[in-house]
Structures are given as structure tokens and as C-alpha cells.
């Protein structure tokens, strides 16, 4: 319904309201880019304003399908009121039409330069209750909205510091044990859960990154994450052992020329430290501390490669030397995946071997013609 305009908090990567947000969390929806100060007649930024300077009448043509068009547009307040219907129900109409209109110009002193444009949410079809409340005197919204889970939490408190402290008209969220901010909504259990999970994941990643800082590569003897170029600041994990290297160092070593009789399997493909043979190297930004973490890194890497088309297979017209053990995607142009047909042959010693592609030319090349 009213979820037509892209939420600007969501666009920046963090909307505290989650699914309760009255703005759209769908990238396909257009962002609201209309300057509300211009609507009121004055915008201090003039032509330098990063919001669009269009008149309210034009807005209709911008979003003709907007639900606001269902209602007559007589004055500012009626525009505001009409859109509230769509977002939060009829209960808020009176509140908005009676309070928000006249109180618009009141902007709290602490609303600094950066907040000055906040009222763009005041735009005709989608006023945002957070700022409504800030602009009105406290207590108004509290008395109107009865369901506690409908009320948003104070975004200032959630960011770490609410200047209004106890006088704040909004719910101050509960303290998140992981990030230590007041960002857990007391009445929205799913949202709390979601935040906790995300927060813990982030925290874990940060800790792993911190631990990884100290780790040195045994080839260049430098700290992997302190290498001069960003591309080099990555670990190369070996599948069979737990010795850390830079991705560039270990790849260079594995691809270096096997000069002076170095054996591919016992020297080049082995770990430089423990000489355990590993068939592949996995790039990773963080170093793991447990086997599960390592497996997770490997699995997500393989998962990622599986979505990339194999350049050797080339949609079926090429021939991939890695065959069925290739990490990349083997799909034909029509999206059909390659069917793996394994041919089992009984070898002379009684064991079963898996035959690779058998070609006539293989036999011909062994023939000695006289």
C-alpha cells in the first residue's frame, strides 16, 4: 500500500524498524527525493540542494498511483492526513492533521545541519512518525498509538545517545548484550531475535578479524593483513593443514616452475611447513580458530564458485580438465547442468576404476603403424 517509497534508512543499510517500517524495503521502489523545505517555500540550499525542488502538484505526476490521490488535496495538512490512512490506519489522521501541520517549522536546536533535511519524510505521501514525534511536543503519539509494538524505538538511543534522555517520547530499546546499544525493541520479539543474530555474527567476524591481524605468512614473513596492497591482504587456506600463508605467496609457490627436479606433489603442492599435500587453496579474509569455522569458509567459497560458469567447460563447447571435481559451474547455454556419467571399469587387478572420457584417438595414438 504505502510501501511505495524506498526507505532512506534502508537505502543506507540500516533501518531500525525492520519489517514494521512504513516505507518500502524493496530496492525496486523509487526513493523519495523531494525537498520539503521547498514545499514550504524556502530552502536554504537553493540550487545546491540534494533534494528535488518540485511543487506539491507535480508530485502527483511523479507517483500518480500513490494512494494520496484518493483524497482531495486541499491543504498541506490534508495531504499529510490522507497518507497516514494508508500507513498506520485512521487513528492517526486526526493527530497529524491537527498537530503536524502547524508545528512543522519547529525543529529542535540539537537537530544539527545534517538533520536539517530530515523532514523530507514529511513529504505528502509518507510522513514518518519518528520525526513527527520529535517535532511535536512529547506525549502526543504515545496517547494515540495504543499497541506498543506499533511504536518505533528511539533511533537516537539506538545509535548510542539520546539527547532527550527520560523526556524522550519514544521507547528506548533494551540494551543489546553484544553491541551495547539500546536497539532491542521491547515489544517486537522477531526483530529482537534478528538483531541479536546479526549482531553476534558481526561481533564474531570482528573478533576473528582482530585475531587474524597478528598472523604471519611463513613465506614472506609479513603479517598477512598488513601487506602493502589490499589485494594481498588475504589468507590462503590449505585444505589439509592449518598453516597460514598469504594468498599471493602460496599461489606463487604452487605455481612456480618446478625447476631442478622439484616434484609437483611432494614439494610444490605440499604445505611449505609440514609438507602435507593439499590439492587446493581457499582464499579468506579472516583466519579461523576452529575446524568448523574452516569448513564454513571452504563451503562458502565452493558455493560461490559453483555459481560461476567454468571457462574451460565454456557452456559445453569446451573441455574442462578438472571434470567432475571442478569447483565451477558446468552448465549449457540453456541453463541445463552437465550430466555426470561415470564409467566404472573393472581393472586387471580386480579393482573398479572410474574411467575418464574414452576417445578413439587415445587408442589410435598407441598404435604403431608400419
Amino acid at each position, binding site marked *: 500500500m504505502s510501501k511505495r517509497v524506498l526507505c532512506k534508512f534502508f537505502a543506507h543499510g540500516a533501518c531500525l524498524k525492520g519489517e514494521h517500517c512504513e516505507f518500502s524495503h524493496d530496492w525496486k521502489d523509487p526513493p523519495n527525493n523531494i525537498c520539503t523545505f521547498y514545499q514550504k517555500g524556502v530552502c536554504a540550499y537553493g540550487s545546491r540542494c540534494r533534494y528535488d525542488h518540485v511543487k506539491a502538484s507535480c508530485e502527483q505526476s511523479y507517483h500518480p498511483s500513490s494512494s494520496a490521490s484518493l483524497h482531495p488535496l486541499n491543504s498541506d495538512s490534508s495531504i499529510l492526513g490522507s497518507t497516514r490512512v494508508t500507513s498506520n490506519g485512521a487513528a492517526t489522521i486526526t493527530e497529524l492533521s491537527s498537530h503536524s501541520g502547524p508545528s512543522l517549522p519547529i525543529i529542535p536546536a540539537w537537530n544539527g545541519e545534517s538533520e536539517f533535511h530530515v523532514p523530507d519524510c514529511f513529504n505528502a505521501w509518507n510522513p514518518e512518525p519518528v520525526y513527527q514525534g520529535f517535532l511535536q511536543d512529547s506525549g502526543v503519539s504515545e496517547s494515540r498509538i495504543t499497541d506498543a509494538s506499533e511504536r518505533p524505538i528511539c533511533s537516537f538511543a539506538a545509535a548510542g545517545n539520546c539527547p532527550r534522555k527520560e523526556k524522550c517520547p519514544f521507547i528506548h530499546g533494551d540494551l543489546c548484550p553484544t553491541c551495547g546499544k539500546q536497539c532491542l525493541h521491547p515489544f517486537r520479539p522477531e526483530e529482537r531475535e534478528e538483531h541479536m543474530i546479526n549482531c553476534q555474527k558481526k561481533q564474531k567476524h570482528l573478533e576473528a578479524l582482530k585475531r587474524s591481524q597478528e598472523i604471519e605468512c*611463513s*613465506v*614472506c614473513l609479513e603479517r598477512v593483513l598488513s601487506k602493502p596492497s589490499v589485494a594481498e591482504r588475504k589468507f590462503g587456506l590449505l585444505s589439509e593443514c592449518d598453516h597460514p600463508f598469504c594468498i599471493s*605467496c602460496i599461489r606463487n609457490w604452487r605455481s*612456480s616452475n618446478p625447476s*631442478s627436479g622439484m616434484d609437483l606433489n611432494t*614439494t610444490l603442492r605440499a604445505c*611449505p*611447513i609440514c609438507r602435507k599435500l593439499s590439492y587446493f587453496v581457499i582464499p579468506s579474509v579472516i583466519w579461523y580458530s576452529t575446524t568448523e569455522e574452516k569448513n564454513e569458509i571452504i563451503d562458502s567459497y565452493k558455493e560461490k564458485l559453483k555459481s560461476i560458469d567454468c571457462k574451460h567447460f565454456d557452456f559445453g563447447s569446451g573441455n574442462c580438465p578438472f571434470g567432475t571435481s571442478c569447483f565451477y559451474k558446468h552448465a549449457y547455454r540453456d541453463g541445463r547442468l552437465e550430466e555426470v556419467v561415470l564409467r566404472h571399469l573393472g581393472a586387471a587387478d580386480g579393482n573398479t576404476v572410474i574411467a575418464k572420457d574414452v576417445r578413439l584417438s587415445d587408442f589410435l595414438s598407441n598404435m604403431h603403424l608400419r
Partner: protein
Amino acid sequence: MQASRARLFKEYKEVQREKTADPDIQLVCDDSNIFKWTALIKGPSETPYEGGVFQLAFAVPEQYPLQPPQVRFLTKIFHPNVHFKTGEICLDILKNAWSPAWTLQSVCRAIIALMAHPEPDSPLNCDSGNLLRSGDVRGFQSMAKMYTRLAAMPKKG
């Protein structure tokens, strides 16, 4: 080139920092060329090389550490795996079993270990190898001791 220089510089700093860590090895870098190093190693105890100080010359390739450094003895030594005339060393880690995780310091340690445990079956010094292979341990030891006295110990008087 840049990578090898950076790595050698790291090793140089490490050597400076832990000069006293291994009293048997004294690794010195050439003043003007970081790709040339010399090392003084003490002959391991309970071997005919005990009491001697042997000088090694390192020539580090530009592809280091992807390729091993070339090491040879400057001090004459009687050892089955060291060429008597050129000082060339026959050691797998300096040839086909090289690994970039080795450092110049650890190569020195490996050479000390080789001195203590000669491998007579792949000799560069056949006379020495043959003595050991024929079981004449005493003959080998006295020859090695003599050359240690002659070449690796400070002259008396």
C-alpha cells in the same frame, strides 16, 4: 625481485634481533648487497668437526624464497656430502625439497645437522663416502678431524 628483497630484509632484522639466540650460527649480510650473505657455523659437538668454525657463502637468487639459496662451504671440510674442492653441498632441501618456509637461519641449522649425520650413499666427496661405506669410521673421523684442525681452527702461535 621486490618480494625477495623485502623477505631478506625481514630475515636480516630477525637475525639482528636474535643474535644470541643460536650461539652456533653467526649470519652476516654483505654490506652492499642483500643477496650475498656469509655465515660462520660451529662444528657440532661429538663429531670430528667439533671445535672448528666453518664459513658458508650464500648466494640468494632473485626468485627467493620460491627458489633455494645457493650455499657452499668456504672453509675446507672433509665430509661425504660436501665437494672437497668447491665446497658445494649436497642437501635435498637446497635442491628439490626446498620450501619457501625455510630461512637462511634454518638452512644453517640444516647444514649443522648434515655435518653431524653424513649421508654416505649420495656422496660428493667419494673418498670420504667410501671410507664410511666400507665401515672405516675411525679412518673417516681421523681424516675429518685433521682437516678441521688444518682449515677450521685458528692457527696456534
